[in-house]
């Protein structure tokens, strides 16, 4: 049984599911401030709903920017998102 997610955590998970992969992009998509998004990311990571991975330093250096920390939804995260999506009425999750 997946754990119940808060609205903020569910929104963050939903944003990652829709292809937003790092903190700034997730903030942009959800419209939530950094003080909400980052603790939500830590909580999701701790519960195993998302998985974080650093971008290769060589790729970032070639583009003249710092490396990003990318987040991905895990299978447990997908299950949790389905439950939360129904509860919070995220359109495409609820349909699926």
């Amino acid at each position, binding site marked *: 049984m997946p754990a119940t997610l808060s609205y903020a955590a569910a929104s963050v998970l939903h944003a990652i599911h829709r292809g937003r992969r*790092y*903190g700034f992009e997730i903030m942009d998509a959800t419209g939530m401030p*950094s003080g909400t998004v*980052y603790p939500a990311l*830590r909580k999701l990571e*701790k519960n195993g709903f998302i998985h974080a991975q650093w971008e290769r330093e060589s790729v970032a*250096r070639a583009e003249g920017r*710092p*490396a*990003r920390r990318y987040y991905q939804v895990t299978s447990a995260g997908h299950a949790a998102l389905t439950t939360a999506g129904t509860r919070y009425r995220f359109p495409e999750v609820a349909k699926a």
Partner: protein
Amino acid sequence: MISPAVPLPPESALLLAAAAALVPAERRDEWRREWHAELWWWLSSTPDPRRMALARHSFGALADAFWLRAGEGFNVADWLARPGLRLAAPALLLALVAAVSGGFPHTRRALFAPAPGSLAILTETGPFMGKIMPLPPAARMAQWSERSHTIESLTPVSRTRAMVRLRPGVTAAQAEREWRDWNAFLQFTPYAAEVVYPLAVLGLPFAALVLVALIDWIRSAPSAFALAQPLGWLTALFLAALELPANPAALFLPYLVTSFMALRYCRRDRSQRCPVCLERLGAPVCIGVGPRGPFEPAGTEFLCPQGHGVLFTTRETEPESRWSALVA
């Protein structure tokens, strides 16, 4: 290693450094690396990056760091409402004022002036709007000082001010008349007037507000917290106002309003706490609604989280509160 470097304004860099100190050591490097990368993205993708907006964004690092330090059950609002932190807030303000002013120079001068009657402050006032100008060169003032019959000694204290010891029986006005022969824009202000005036102007409302706080404390639950919190804020605001580089008369109203608001805040904060353990009261229950409404007084009941009692507040234009202790 992060490349390229993120050029952060000092306030954002300070916030990030303070937050980094809270993050558990084993995660700190990775945390810092992620936040630097995020701020880099924020800076490079915001068309007109404003410092305040960046500082607000960086403030999220503190919430993130708190979460990492204390785990999931941690609530920043509850943590900030702890009585010790509420008492520390005016002390922090005092520390900040002390750091900015260089150790309360105005207050120290006012309280510990040696024979203030024989001292004067020398300034040079410009011809336009009475603007304070830099004093003449020290060597020139030393020459005038040697030729003077009205002053004993002259000690520059800043670029625009010098402390003068007058000869016995000489007034600041007499010294000014003599020195204006050498420089028409020099001005001698009696030291006592300069340092005692702010104390008198701001001290009166301070004393009145302290009296109000004491009466309120005696009338309410007389705990040490209920006394220390308003007195701490009143003292901190008074000392901060004394150190502000502004005319005390212009500060009178803002100081009075701010101090009054601080008193109201302390009163409100105290009324939301258990008088026994000082924890914030919670679990509000509306009373006087529903089928039993007509038979109960209308109001809200708050419970102490440690079970010391309940506070009933009436729902009226001027609410009254009643504390009932619970017997275990």
